[in-house]
C-alpha cells in the first residue's frame, strides 16, 4: 500500500510545479509607479499610467548613453474601471504587468476631489501589491507626475519612494502608505490625510563634463491633502503639515529656527529629536476638549551669530523659544483642520472613543462630525535641550569677549 501511496505522490509531482502561475522574470514588466486620473475624454473613465522598469537599460556603464535604452517605459490606458484600464495596457505592453514592486500610487487631483474609493479598493484587493506602497495626491494630473523627474535616481518611482521615506526630517508626510490609508478609510471616525506632490522647475546638469544645463520638471513633496471620507477637501501647506507632524508623525526629527536670544534678527537652528506626543481628552457636559502635550529633546545645530551668554542661560532661553515655536506650528495646523476643513484627520474621535467609551457609544459617536470643528484644544510643549552639538559654550567672538564660562 505504501508503494501505491508513493506512486500517487510521484504522479502528483507534475501537478505541484505550479504551471498555471508560472511567470518568467524576463516576461514581466515591473511597475515602479502608477498614476490614476479621471479621463479627460470621458469623465466616467479612468486613465491609468504606469512607469515600468526597463531591465535592458541596466547594461554596462561603458555603453554610450545615446545608444542605451530608457530606464523606464511609461504608458497609459483608459477603462471604465481601473482594472479594465490596466488590462487595456496589455494591448501595448510587450511584458506582463507585475505590481509586486510598485513603489508609489499617485492619484490625480480631479479624481481625488471626486472620489478616492476605487483607487483604495482596487489596490487593497490586489494580492501582488505591498501594503506599504506609498500613496500621494498630485497637484494636477497624475500622468504628468509619472513623466517628471524625481530625486537623483534613474527610476523616478523608486526615487519618489525614497523621498517619502525621508520625510520624517521635514515633517511633510506622515507615512501615507496604503496600509495607513486603508486603515483610516475603513475607520468609523478618522478621515484620510495623504501626502501631496507638486512640480517645480529644476535645473539639472548631466555631468561635470557637460556644461549644457537642462530645465526639467521635478517632483517635490508639498504638504498633505485633507479628505472628508471619500473626497479631497483641499491641501495643507508645508507649515500647516509640519504643525500636525509634531503629534501625528512617528519619530519626527525636525529642525526649527528660532530667533537668537542675543540678536533677534539672527536665527538659531534646533534639531528636535525623541519627540513624544500625548493626546488626552476631557468631557464636560458631553463636550469634549483635548490637550496635546509634546515632549522632546533638542540639539542646537547652528547659531547664526555670536553671544556672550553662558551655556545654561543659552539653553534655557532656547528651550523656551523652541517650545513657543512648536506650539505656534501646531496651532497653525489645527486651525486649518478645525476651521477650514472641519474633518477629523487627526484621529481625535478615536481618542475620545478609547478614553470615554460609555459616552461615545451613547451618542457622541453619532454627533462627532458636528462636534469636531468646535472642540477646544490646548497645546503644551516641553523641550529639553541637551547639547549644543560638539560645542561646549555658545559661539564666541573672542575679539569682542574674553569671558569663558563652564
Amino acid at each position, binding site marked *: 500500500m505504501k508503494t501505491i501511496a508513493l506512486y500517487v*505522490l510521484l504522479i502528483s509531482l507534475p501537478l*505541484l510545479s505550479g504551471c498555471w*502561475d508560472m511567470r518568467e522574470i524576463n516576461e514581466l514588466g515591473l511597475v515602479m509607479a502608477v498614476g490614476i486620473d479621471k479621463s479627460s475624454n470621458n469623465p466616467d473613465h479612468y486613465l491609468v499610467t504606469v512607469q515600468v522598469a526597463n531591465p535592458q537599460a541596466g547594461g554596462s556603464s561603458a555603453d554610450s548613453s545615446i545608444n542605451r535604452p530608457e530606464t523606464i517605459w511609461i504608458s497609459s490606458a483608459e477603462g471604465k474601471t481601473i482594472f479594465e484600464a490596466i488590462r487595456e495596457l496589455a494591448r501595448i505592453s510587450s511584458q506582463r504587468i507585475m505590481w509586486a514592486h510598485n513603489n508609489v500610487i499617485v492619484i490625480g487631483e480631479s479624481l481625488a476631489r471626486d472620489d478616492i474609493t476605487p483607487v483604495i479598493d482596487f489596490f487593497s484587493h490586489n*494580492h501582488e501589491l505591498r501594503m506599504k506602497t506609498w500613496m500621494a495626491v498630485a497637484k494636477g494630473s497624475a500622468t504628468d507626475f509619472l513623466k517628471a523627474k524625481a530625486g537623483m535616481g534613474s527610476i523616478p518611482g523608486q526615487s519618489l519612494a525614497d523621498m517619502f521615506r525621508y520625510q520624517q526630517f521635514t515633517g511633510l508626510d506622515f507615512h501615507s502608505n496604503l496600509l495607513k490609508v486603508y486603515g483610516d478609510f475603513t475607520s468609523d471616525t478618522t478621515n484620510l490625510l495623504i501626502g501631496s506632490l507638486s512640480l517645480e522647475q529644476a535645473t539639472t546638469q548631466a555631468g561635470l563634463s557637460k556644461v549644457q544645463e537642462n530645465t526639467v520638471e521635478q517632483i517635490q513633496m508639498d504638504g498633505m491633502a485633507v479628505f472628508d471620507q471619500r473626497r479631497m477637501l483641499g491641501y495643507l501647506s508645508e507649515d500647516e503639515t509640519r504643525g500636525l507632524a509634531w503629534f501625528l508623525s512617528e519619530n519626527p526629527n525636525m529642525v526649527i529656527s528660532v530667533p537668537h536670544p542675543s540678536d533677534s534678527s539672527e536665527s538659531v537652528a534646533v534639531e528636535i529629536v525623541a519627540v513624544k506626543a500625548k493626546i488626552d481628552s476631557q468631557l464636560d457636559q458631553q463636550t469634549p476638549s483635548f490637550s496635546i502635550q509634546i515632549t522632546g529633546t533638542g540639539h542646537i545645530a547652528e547659531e547664526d551669530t555670536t553671544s556672550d551668554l553662558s551655556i545654561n542661560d543659552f539653553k534655557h532661553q532656547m528651550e523656551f523659544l523652541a517650545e513657543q515655536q512648536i506650539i505656534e506650528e501646531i496651532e497653525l495646523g489645527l486651525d486649518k483642520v478645525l476651521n477650514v476643513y472641519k474633518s477629523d484627520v487627526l484621529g481625535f474621535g478615536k481618542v475620545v472613543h478609547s478614553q470615554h467609551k460609555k459616552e461615545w457609544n451613547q451618542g457622541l459617536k453619532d454627533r462627532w462630525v458636528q462636534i469636531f470643528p468646535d472642540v477646544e484644544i490646548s497645546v503644551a510643549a516641553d523641550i529639553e535641550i541637551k547639547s549644543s552639538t560638539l560645542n561646549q559654550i555658545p559661539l564666541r567672538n573672542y575679539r569682542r569677549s574674553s569671558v569663558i564660562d563652564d
Partner: protein
Amino acid sequence: MMTKVKISRFQYFLLIPNLLFAKAIGITAGVTARSVGSDAWTSMSIGFLLGTAIILAMVYLHSRFPEKTIVQISEEVVGKWLGKLTGIVLALFFILAFGASANVMTMHLKEYFLVETPFWLICFVYTLLCMYGVFVGIENIVRFSLFGLLGCLLINITMIFGTWGDFDLINLLPVLDRGLSANIANSIYIFGDLAMAILGIGMIYPLLNNKDKTFVISFWAMVLSGILILIWPIMELGVIGSGAMQQYVVVCMQQVRCAQLTGYLPRYELIMVSFFTFTTFVQSATMYYCSVQSFQQSSGMLKNRQIIILLLAIAMFLATFLMANDHNNYIHFLAYPWAQICTILSLGLPVVLIMTALIRGKLKNKPTPAKT
C-alpha cells in the same frame, strides 16, 4: 483500542498548539472582528480561557479511562448504540474539521500565490498529502509537531518584528468596548479551533506512552498556545485595525503583507507561509486520522483500514472543495453554523460524559496509568 503506536508526552505537548494555531490566527480572528470589532482579542481570550477549562475536563475524563478514545468512552458511559452514534457524529465532525483546516492552506495559496491554479487541484494535492500522512501513521504526523511549533515561533517572531513599527495601541482600545456579555457570546468563534484540540485529544490521548502529569502538560500547552495565537489578533488590530480586519478573508495574510524588515527585506510573506505549512499539515492530518479512528471504532470495521483511509479521502477532498469553492461561503460557514456546532460538541460532549459517568458511578475508581 489497543495499538502499538505510541507518542511521548513531549510530542503530546507540542501537538496541542499545532491543533489550534493555523486557522485561529487569521481566519478566526477575521470572523470574530466582524462581530465585535476591536474586541476581537478580548473575545478570543475569553474563549481561550473557557477552552482551557474544557481541555482540562477532557484530560480528567481520560484519566479515568486512560486506554480508551472518546468514542470508546462514550460507548462505556452512555451505552453501545449512543456511543456508536457519537462516533459517527465525531467522524463527520472530523471530516468537516479537516475541510476547515485544509482550507486555511488552500485559501492562502489560492488568494495570494497560485491565483490561476484551479482550486480543485490545490484541494486534491493537499488531501493527497494528508492522506499519505495518515497512511504512514499518527506517530509520524505528530513528529512534525516539533517543526510545526518552531514554524509558529518563527512566523510570530518575523511578524512581530516586521509590523511592530506600525503598531498603534489605540486600535485595541477601549477594552471590552462591546461589553463583557457580547465578548463572551462571540467567543464561540474560537471554538471552531478549540474543538479540534478538545476532540482531537479525545482520540489521541490513549496513544500516550506515559500518562503521568497530563493535566499539567495540557495546561501549559494551552498557555503556550494562547500566547502564540492571541498575539495575532492583538497585532492585527494594532497594525491594520478592526475596520480593515473585517474586510478580508485571510486576515493573517494581510498582516504579513504589511510586514517589512528594513529596506532590504520589504516583503517576505512567502517565507512566512513556508513556516506556516508544517503546523497546518499537522492540524489537517490529525483531523483526518481522528476521522478514520472514529469511523473505524463506531462501525466496528477494524480491518480494511487502508480502504477506509482511501474512501475518506474522497470525503475529505469534497468537504474541502465544496466548503471553500466560494470563498465567501467558507467564511459564512465558519461563522454559522460551524462555530455553533463546534461549541456544542466540544463543550457538550465532555460535560455530558463526565456528568453521566458521575451519575453511573464510573468515575469512582482511578485506574493506574499504564506506562509503555
